[in-house]
């Protein structure tokens, strides 16, 4: 008797997700299924064929570009984390009003068109850029900071860092300050408190941020094309080429399927990391 009531209650709770689920089924799952289906068609779309995947397997290009895409996405994730964590930590230690103000700095890069921004990066980091001129003044350099993998990392993390900062900041703000205080009373040093208390408790935020940034990176191609070298080629670039230039849509779809598979695999892998499961369901860590 009680279990029926319980079940009814659970179903009622579940029904709250119904509109979102219907929406996603109609405007996301279905069109995406059509893409997956299209990847199994022949070039003329008339019959089933392994043509698109055959094409991908027959040239080294797709393997090389897939490898590059994974490397760049992973690198952008690490780079963003390296930059975002100290910033989030710093922001979490500020009073709320000042913190809200400092958010300007995190959000501003969002609003500057990447093309003019890439020109600005050249002025800052180029061969005769500000940084290299400063280095030359102290007898160093020049260092190649742009139009290589490093340039890609800089440009991508510049855009992606809010997606890393927000989850980390949230998880840092969630920690009761008393915890650190208690640890301090117990005689722990600042570094030890950070290492033993603050950092482990912020892992869920880090996991969420890493997942978001990694997956968003997989779909990038404009930034690598503008700030990278000749080898910084992304899969999304090929999707674009086959969709809009060569118009071989089964191949575009097949690359899309590969990209999506990689992203879902990354999500599932990260959900096994401590704190990662909270991302996929509301359970506590």
């Amino acid at each position, binding site marked *: 008797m009680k279990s029926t009531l319980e079940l009814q209650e659970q179903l009622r*709770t*579940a*029904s709250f*997700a119904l*509109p*979102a*689920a219907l*929406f*996603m089924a109609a*405007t996301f799952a279905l*069109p995406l299924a*059509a*893409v997956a289906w299209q990847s199994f068609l022949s070039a003329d779309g008339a019959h089933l064929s392994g043509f698109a995947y055959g094409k991908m397997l027959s040239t080294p290009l797709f393997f090389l570009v897939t490898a590059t895409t994974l490397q760049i996405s992973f690198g952008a994730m690490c780079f963003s984390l390296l930059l975002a964590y*100290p*910033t989030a*930590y*710093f922001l*979490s*230690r*500020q009073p709320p*009003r*000042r913190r*809200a*103000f*400092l*958010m*300007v*700095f*995190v*959000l*501003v*890069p*969002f*609003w*500057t*068109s990447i*093309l*003019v*921004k890439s*020109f*600005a990066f050249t*002025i*800052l980091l180029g061969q005769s850029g500000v940084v290299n001129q400063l280095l030359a003044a102290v007898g160093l350099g020049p260092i190649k900071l742009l139009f290589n993998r490093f340039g890609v990392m800089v440009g991508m993390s510049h855009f992606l860092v809010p997606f890393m900062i927000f989850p980390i900041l949230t998880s840092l703000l*969630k920690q009761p*300050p008393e915890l650190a205080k208690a640890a301090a009373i117990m005689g722990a040093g600042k570094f030890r408190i950070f290492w033993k208390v603050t950092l482990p408790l912020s892992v869920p935020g880090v996991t*969420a941020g890493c997942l978001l940034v990694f*997956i968003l990176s*997989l*779909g990038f191609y404009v930034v690598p094309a503008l700030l990278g070298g000749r080898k910084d080629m992304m899969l999304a670039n090929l999707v674009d080429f086959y969709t809009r230039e060569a118009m071989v849509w089964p191949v575009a779809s097949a690359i*899309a399927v590969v*990209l*999506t598979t990689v*992203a879902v695999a*990354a*999500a599932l892998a990260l959900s096994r990391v401590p704190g990662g499961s909270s*991302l*996929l*369901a*509301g359970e*506590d860590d």
Partner: protein
Amino acid sequence: MAVNGVAVAFLGFLVLPSLIVVVISFGDSNQIVFPPKGFSFNLFRRLLAEEGWISSAWLSFRVALAASALALVLGVPAAYALSRGRFPGRRWLALFLLSPIMVPHVVIALALYVYFVELGLSNGMLRLVLAHGVATVPFVIVTANAGLRQIDPSLERVARVMGAGRFTVLRKVTLPLLKPAMVAGGLFAFLISFDEVVISLFVARAGYTTLPVKMFSSIQFEVSPVLAAISTMLTALSVAVCILAARLQPNAST
């Protein structure tokens, strides 16, 4: 402290390129030139004179507003179900609802593009709002979910024991407590929608050119130095919004 130094340097790194663009936008040469050889409002004048920049910005604003409203209406109840429910299949439902984050935008764009044409969905506004809804709902779910997990469920339980109905509890207890998370989620959705280019590029119909799409197409075939002026205006706008948000914050220290 070293961390502070690193953080401040990093915040500087984030805004520096935008500052350079601001300087470029006030140049007198009608081109992207740095350092500018003189000061003028040329590019801003062109921004106002050339067809479509202002109407595109206005369209983007309306689309972003509608898309974030849609995302909130769909996302918040879904987050409630995911965080409060203990029904079977909850994990899979969560994976499903969040999956648009996992699919790169080019892929969604390609899919929706063909889909809308097949359906004959010809309302330009609706196309954009639905497409942006797909991209933003997951972000609202993630944010609202985090907010709900910070609300002690025992508060809701107590209210129900006291005889309040389910919806009364939602209205009087849960939603008011969830307000900060909803504001954050809505803002996130707004930003993503306002900035979205790849999906809009594919699904938009004639006469529905959003600002990012207009900016993107103006770099694809040629570059319009007006981009520098637009970037400056958007930056100024976001700075104003952030300052406003800061003023609304209580000044208590943590």
